[in-house]
């Protein structure tokens, strides 16, 4: 295809809403598969976070959208157009990497203008576009400085301004906050959320290993592990009803307790389950009401209970022995031995916290005790 024809296609595509579609995308390096058959739709205007530990393939997925890695198999579509073979400079995607990659030999304004010059924006328009982009991230006063004269947080803002200046339909963020300290990170998270409110048409693919970033920013989260997408859904779906043990533990921390289904629960959609001890024998006299389905009576399953949803009850509930008590300001974190399982409880600051060795009873609402993999479809 000629460059002219290509440009015409790009111009036409620019008017469509820009979602990203991964179709069975597989990437290998020297025989090692680093992204294995990723199929995922990122909707136009959505913030999608790819969350996973190091080496899970999330950055490779992002780099394949940018055009920096070539898929061995599968296709990538942007706004309905197949961009798998398109060179990076023709994709019109903004990207911010972990190291920011600000050009050290250029001033802040020159960094931001670079993309506009590369895209042959009329020279007269460039200063206003640069000022607009820097204004959006609160860096207008730093236009004449060099990157080395800026702090990490300021460099990060400039990197975002540089990516936004070209008015991309898709913004790729590769661990953009990982080089910042905790306080700056919290501030920048709020800034990114504000930015997305101001630019609701912008589709953002956000790669992170930090669950707080993903939960705060993302409309949907894709959880990755060992080069594969293992779960995808809204933050609430993943948090409340994780598909498996990995997702439950990776997203927010969870108590995963082995149970045996003993019958139907008190309400529709609930089951009665007996806690199983480490020796495989039912450990609780009083069955626990759990949410979920598809598990027959007598079968074993794992139930997920978030630490802050467990309550210290008076006389009813699962009995346990307090092993450890930590005061964490707003909450008391208790480790309680329940039938041989170490259960974590985050209780709102207690006036008289129990002492280690003391017996307590724990209760949880049926809707907050969810059988793994049973809460959602798809």
């Amino acid at each position, binding site marked *: 295809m000629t460059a002219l024809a290509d440009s015409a296609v790009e111009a036409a595509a620019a008017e469509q809403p820009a979602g990203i579609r991964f179709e069975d995308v597989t990437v290998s390096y020297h025989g090692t598969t680093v992204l294995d058959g990723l199929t995922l739709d990122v909707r136009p205007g959505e913030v999608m976070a790819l969350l996973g530990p190091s080496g899970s393939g999330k950055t490779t997925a992002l780099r394949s959208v940018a055009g920096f890695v070539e898929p061995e198999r599968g296709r990538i579509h942007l706004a309905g157009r197949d961009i798998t073979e398109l060179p*990076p400079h023709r994709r019109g995607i903004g990207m911010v*990497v972990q*190291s920011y990659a600000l050009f*050290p*030999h250029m001033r802040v304004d020159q960094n931001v203008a670079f993309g506009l010059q*590369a895209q042959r924006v009329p020279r007269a328009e460039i200063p206003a576009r640069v000022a607009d982009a820097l204004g959006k991230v609160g860096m207008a006063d730093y236009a004449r400085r060099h990157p080395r004269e800026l702090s990490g947080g300021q460099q990060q803002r400039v990197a975002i301004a*540089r*990516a936004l200046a*070209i008015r991309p339909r898709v913004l790729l963020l590769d661990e953009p906050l990982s080089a910042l300290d905790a306080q700056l990170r919290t501030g920048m998270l709020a800034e990114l959320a504000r930015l997305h409110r101001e630019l609701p048409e912008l589709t953002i693919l956000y790669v992170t290993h930090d669950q707080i970033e993903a939960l705060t920013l993302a409309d949907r989260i894709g959880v990755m592990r060992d080069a594969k997408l293992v779960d995808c859904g809204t933050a609430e779906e993943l948090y409340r009803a994780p598909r498996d043990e990995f997702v439950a533990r990776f997203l927010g921390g969870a108590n995963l307790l082995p149970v045996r289904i003993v019958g139907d629960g008190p309400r529709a959609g609930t089951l009665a389950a007996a806690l199983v001890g480490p020796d495989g024998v039912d450990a609780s006299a009083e069955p626990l009401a759990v949410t979920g389905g598809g598990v027959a009576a007598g079968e074993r399953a794992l139930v997920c209970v978030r630490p802050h949803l467990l309550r210290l009850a008076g006389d009813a509930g699962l009995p346990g022995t307090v092993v450890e008590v930590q005061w964490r300001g707003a909450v008391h974190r208790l480790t309680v031995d329940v039938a041989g399982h170490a259960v974590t409880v985050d209780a709102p600051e207690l006036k008289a916290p129990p002492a280690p060795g003391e017996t307590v009873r724990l209760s949880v609402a049926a809707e907050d005790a969810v059988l793994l993999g049973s809460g959602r479809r798809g």
Partner: protein
Amino acid sequence: MLVPSRTARRVIHLLFLVAFVPVFALPFAVIVVASFAGAWSGALPSHPTLGNYAAATSGDSLHALLTSLITAVAASLIALTVGTWAALAADAAGRGLRRVLDGAFVLPVAVPSVVVGLGLLVAFSKPPLLLNGTPAIVIAAHTVLVTAFAYQSVRAAATRLDPAFAQAAAGLGATPLRVLLRIRLPLLLPSLTAAAGLCFALSMGELSATMMLYPPSWTPLPIRIFALTDRGSLFSGAALAVLLMAATLAVLLAVGRIRTRADHR
């Protein structure tokens, strides 16, 4: 600090001076003194004169200086272009081609320069590539000898350069040519100027290969110095040697200034 004791540091400094002055500084000092001498029969030179410099900056000697400067500038520019191109190509190439390029560009350093001179003499003495007897064969020899240094200098810097810069530029819509001209080459500038300075200095002092190839109309300064001292005109040769050092140093300082500015941007 490797040596914490102040006394021990002073002793080491003294030892360094005792070793450094005779081995490195004294030969240069002797050449400078000799360049102003009319005669040197005793322990010290006598009959001080500026006549050696008057001779060195006129006639055949001046021509030799200009010849050396032109040869060194031309060889350095060609070497820098070819070396940079090859180094960037090696950086982007697969492991196999990279090894071939690394090997090919280390060859002129490993082979004695006399052999390089002989090789060019044999290769370019018959049509259609008849360069023997022309200035081009001298420039070609210098280029072959110094390109390896340009290649290695730029190659090391290109390997260290974070690929994220080029990728960020491409992501912003820059074509590969724009990425090269606006991002990669400016970021490589310190190593490019270092390579240019090294190539220039090596070319200015090259003697062995030049000796086998130079035509009478294209006599570089080292050949002229060798010829003068061979005929016994030691003091004229010394004045020319001082000019050679001064010219090389001036260019290296000028190139160094570019480098310093690039580093501090």
